[in-house]
């Protein structure tokens, strides 16, 4: 199958801050989470995908087309939700819907109505009269039913309460059931990442730490507990942190082999929660 997005050696410099190089391929049927600390360049990266920011170096292809080329027909095949909507303030929800739905040939009106009903968004109120949570719900209702092959959401659960977050996870999982779509979303929410993401892209201060399959991350980080404090560990590979009778390895097979060779027995072994792994990789 053809990749939906192909990003290679993408770099950007803003003042003295460097983003990249970023390399990423997005295949149909997959959900990719973009994760990074604040100011790590996530939003700028998403803007470059939409040709709203210019890269300093590198290439982006969506559906086989260069995004910075003269032909912008690919934009109809992408639904993008930025962190902040500009120009929505004076309009009512129903007006915004009329304006946006006409631009997308696959607009799904019943899905729009369902999201509005589920999230209880009042369409007759002006955008700037809505709370931040309701604004975000309206934004999502105006984005998801475009039914494009690629959807890009920049922090979709911002300002949303817990039941709404879980509702959105259901809506997005259901959205993925139809055809060969792909979803790319930036998030700080461990729960969203855990439930939805197939792949994790980690950006730390602009630098791409890696692209990981979710289970690979979970399998590659293990905590071990021992009956007593470990003293001589300098020859054991894979140790990320060690404190008293507990150690965390980022290469369990090698760590275990070395421990067994030294006849050091652990009494428990446990996978690290995804949130802790992300924190380790980003700190």
């Amino acid at each position: 199958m053809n990749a939906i997005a192909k990003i290679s050696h993408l770099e950007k410099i803003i003042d003295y801050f460097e983003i990249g190089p970023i390399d990423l391929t997005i295949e149909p049927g997959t959900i990719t989470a973009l994760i990074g600390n604040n100011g790590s360049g996530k939003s700028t990266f998403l803007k470059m995908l939409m040709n709203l920011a210019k890269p300093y170096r590198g290439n982006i292809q969506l559906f086989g087309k260069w995004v910075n080329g003269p032909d912008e027909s690919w934009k109809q095949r992408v639904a993008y939700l930025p962190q902040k909507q500009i120009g929505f303030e004076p309009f009512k929800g129903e007006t915004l819907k009329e304006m946006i739905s006409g631009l997308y040939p696959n607009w799904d009106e019943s899905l729009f109505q369902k999201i509005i009903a589920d999230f209880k968004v009042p369409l007759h109120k002006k955008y700037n009269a809505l709370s931040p949570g309701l604004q975000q719900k309206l934004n999502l209702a105006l984005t998801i039913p475009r039914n494009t092959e690629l959807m890009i959401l920049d922090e979709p659960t911002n300002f949303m309460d817990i039941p709404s977050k879980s509702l959105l996870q259901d809506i997005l999982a259901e959205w993925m059931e139809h055809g060969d779509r792909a979803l790319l979303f930036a998030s700080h929410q461990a729960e969203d990442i855990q439930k939805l993401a197939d792949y994790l892209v980690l950006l730390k201060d602009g630098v791409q730490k890696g692209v990981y399959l979710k289970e690979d991350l979970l399998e590659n980080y293990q905590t071990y507990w021992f009956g007593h404090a470990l003293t001589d560990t300098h020859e054991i590979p894979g140790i990320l942190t060690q404190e008293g009778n507990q150690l965390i390895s980022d290469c369990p097979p090698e760590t275990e082999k070395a421990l067994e060779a030294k006849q050091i027995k652990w009494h428990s072994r446990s996978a690290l929660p995804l949130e802790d792994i992300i924190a380790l990789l980003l700190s």
Partner: protein
Amino acid sequence: MTLPIRLSKDSREPIYHQIEKQIKALIAGGHIEAHTPLPSIRALSKALEVSVITTRRAYQDLEQQGFIQTIQGKGTFVSNISATEKQEVKVAEVHETILQAVEAARRYDYTFSEIEAIFQKVLASLKNNEEA
């Protein structure tokens, strides 16, 4: 439909294999009948918090072994499994569970005859309970 699958992320057993084994056990144990629709790959992945790559691998293996069947455009369904095949899965699962218990005992440095004695004790106490 949802499936009562519980994954151990601490286990050395790969996740796709855990999914496969538990679905097989549900089918062999008669808990999900032939022709029952299974959750979509995306829905099961979300419920288990794993990637679709892992769930797809489990479904593909189960399909190859004849436990489930995917019908294009309709979904994935439980196949008709013969009594002999169900029996084989049950035997394999019990075997595996006992093996894990024995391995746990070996980690505590018990000898084989000590383990056998423990096993006999467990059996005797279960028997007593059932007869009472």
